[in-house]
């Protein structure tokens, strides 16, 4: 007789955390490739650095907390968080910035709360916001896509940039504000949107290059929906909220408020809707709650973009919505079988 003590059900599990996380990584690939296609290999270095530091920090903290290290490292949740965090950074960033940000995300954002499953805030966004507030200059030095500037930094140059072995002033000509930033500054100077969008920075709908990256994030998001890794409630309600807010104001005053398509295809709305806001740990967990949660983030994104102090607002919107999750979940409990 076996001496194993285990209670039912006795069916082989059809799913695992690792499988879910790998699916997210797969879904991130097309958008990441598009990002590199337009902006050069900088993001790859950021992602690689972030993953290495994330795993190192996670292993160290697990060790300190006397938790099993390998089972947690190989659930790949740290890899996903690092990947998403790295995608939020400017395409070229010094290595210490990456290390500091992901370190804060892993330690303060994740493990101080008890590790995976216990963090009320999205760790990647915690790390990103910490950097945005602490290092505004480094965090807002963006570069032009190759289709605009004609060239991007090579792999060797990107590595040299990251590790501070060169004077980055030589690439000043390639640096630029993001399209969202451009719109914000322009509108602040009372320049009509149409005029702002005449610069080569802008494409057909959003920023040049950016709109295509957004499209590939969308493709990845659809993959997540098809594989049932995420559900439709958060992405749909989030996108619907951004689009409707944008539409309402665009219809009122098109010279001051950019079109819904511009808002959808600029910045991080699409990746935010499918990859960031859908982090299950920090998101609402009921169906109805997820709709409220998505709507809230969508509205906040628009408000921060248009009236707030930052050109884009995904991170703050997500963190603010994270705070409301316990409340949302409590008041959106589904009707239990047999109840009126």
């Amino acid at each position, binding site marked *: 007789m076996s001496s194993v003590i285990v209670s*039912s059900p006795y069916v082989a599990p059809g799913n695992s955390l690792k499988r879910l996380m790998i699916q997210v990584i797969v879904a991130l690939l097309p958008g990441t490739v598009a990002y590199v296609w337009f902006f050069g290999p900088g993001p790859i270095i950021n992602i690689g650095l972030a993953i290495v530091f994330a795993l190192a920090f996670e292993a160290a903290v697990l060790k300190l907390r006397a938790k099993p290290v390998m089972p947690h490292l190989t659930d790949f949740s740290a890899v996903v968080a690092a990947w998403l965090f790295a995608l939020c950074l400017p395409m070229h960033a010094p290595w210490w910035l990456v290390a500091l940000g992901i370190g804060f995300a892993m330690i303060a954002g994740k493990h101080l709360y008890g590790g995976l499953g216990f963090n009320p805030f999205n760790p990647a966004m915690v790390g990103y916001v910490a950097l945005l507030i602490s290092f505004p200059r480094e965090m807002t030095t963006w570069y032009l896509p190759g289709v605009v500037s004609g060239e991007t930094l090579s792999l060797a140059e990107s590595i040299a940039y990251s590790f501070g072995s060169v004077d980055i002033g030589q690439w000043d000509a390639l640096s630029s504000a993001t399209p969202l930033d451009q719109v914000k500054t322009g509108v602040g100077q009372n320049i009509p949107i149409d005029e702002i969008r005449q610069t080569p920075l802008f494409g057909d709908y959003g920023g040049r290059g950016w709109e295509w990256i957004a499209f590939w994030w969308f493709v990845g998001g659809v993959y997540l929906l098809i594989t049932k890794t995420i559900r439709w409630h958060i992405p749909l309600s989030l996108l619907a909220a951004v689009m409707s807010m944008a539409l309402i104001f665009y219809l009122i005053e098109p010279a001051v408020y950019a079109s819904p398509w511009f808002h959808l295809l600029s910045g991080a709305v699409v990746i935010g809707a499918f990859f960031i806001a859908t982090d299950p740990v920090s998101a609402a967990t009921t169906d109805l709650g997820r709709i409220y949660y998505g709507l809230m983030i969508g509205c906040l994104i628009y408000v921060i973009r248009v009236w707030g102090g930052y050109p884009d607002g995904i991170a703050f919107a997500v963190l603010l919505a994270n705070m409301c999750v316990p409340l949302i979940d409590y008041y959106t*409990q589904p009707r239990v079988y*047999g109840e009126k």
Partner: protein
Amino acid sequence: MARLYKFHGGLHLDGHKSESLGRDLRSASLPEQLILPLRQHIGEYNKPLVEVGNRVLKGDVIAANSSLICAAVHAPTSGTVSAIGNYPVAHPSGQRDSCIVIDVDGEDEAARADIVNPKELDSEALIQRICRAGIVGLGGAAFPTSPKLSRGKTHTVDTLIINGVECEPYITCDDILMRNYADEIIRGSAYLQQILSPQTTLIAIEDNKPEAIAAMQEALLLQPLANTEIIAIPTIYPSGGEKQLIQILTGKEVPHGQFAFDIGLLCQNVGTCVAITRALEQDQPLISRIVTCTGDNVSQPGNWEVRFGTPISHLIEQAGGYKNPDNAFLVMGGPMMGFALHSDRLPIVKASNCIMVMREQTIPHTPGYHDECIRCSKCTEVCPAQLLPQQLYWHARAQAWDRTLEFKLFDCIECGCCSAVCPSQIPLVQYYRAAKSEIRAAHKAQFKSDRARARFEFREKRLLLKKQADEERRRLKREALKQKQAKSGAAADGAPDPVQAALERVRERKKAIREETR
């Protein structure tokens, strides 16, 4: 039946039914000894009616109880009672329970049956006979059948549901029963109609059992029943759960805190129907059942008619024995809701529908470690009770019992769907079972302490009242005394003394008489 409805969630599971369906139904041989637990049903314990040394015949009542929710135990064969005491029984806790042990004599001599025509009996008499036969629901819960049927006296039963769904993987005892005894199921349904007079009768079978459906349809054709329909329902676990089956067939939900009969429904398992037929037609009590013995660690999986009390090891021998006894993992019931057995020296009882003989390696287990809940809500999607398992888990882990109640812990039917889909492989149901028993224990303790406090307070109050009453009585007495004294004092103060007055009156009268006579 125009349409079927859906219940929330559920799972499509690998059936693993074919393993045990490759062989015909057989009767298990009699073992040397039968161990019969006094309680094989939900409800009160039976009291033994035999003593050590008594000879019993097949069908003799050996333990019973006058309680309403009870099912008597009968001798499954003839033999001698050799012991009455505590023996290990099949229970998740692995505990011992009181049992009667019968040394089988091999004669299989039956007690005299009292056969009457059941068609001439009224429903009261029919229920009485079902009660006498010790019949319980054979679907797995083992709730005594007669009290359930007695509900027909106080409630109107519109729809009688005969449950031949058998949705759990591996189990095929109802499938094989329907293939072999369809006519007895139909006759049993007829007797249930006679008792309950429902408007419609629905016989539900999952559509993964075409042979059973065909056999049942043929039997219904041969002995037609009024307003009765055989319905093939889609194969999805746990469609055989009473509440889920009701939802599939009628679209109705059993209201919170109520029972099926409150909304005019009554469910009976197909096995129970056969038991009813045999009890009513042949006066045969419930002494055996069909048990599936299957799994990847038994040589010849199949179904056997097994007398109660037969040790599981005996059944496994009938099935060709273990492939590898050293790593055998035994489960009573199915893989979703069954429970592990710590030994094979345990008796088959009325609730034993299946014995799974598995290899330890096939049983998924990661002792002591599981990933944390990431609130992905896969569990919510599959929960047939429409609960939020992830929130229940969170609060159960934190031992926040009142929170678990807010999230309707006790509506959990422990079907295991949530555990099966959890990507973190958390044994969710185990957390809920533990939370439920903690809460029940706390309630019991609370009830006891409340009662003790109430008694104490009542006593205090009683003593206080007594004291007050005594004081009041004394006060009144004192006052009365005082009044009396005051009165007598007042008489001395000038009021005429009644005695003196009377004497005066007599004297007056005498004086008057004397004057008259003069």
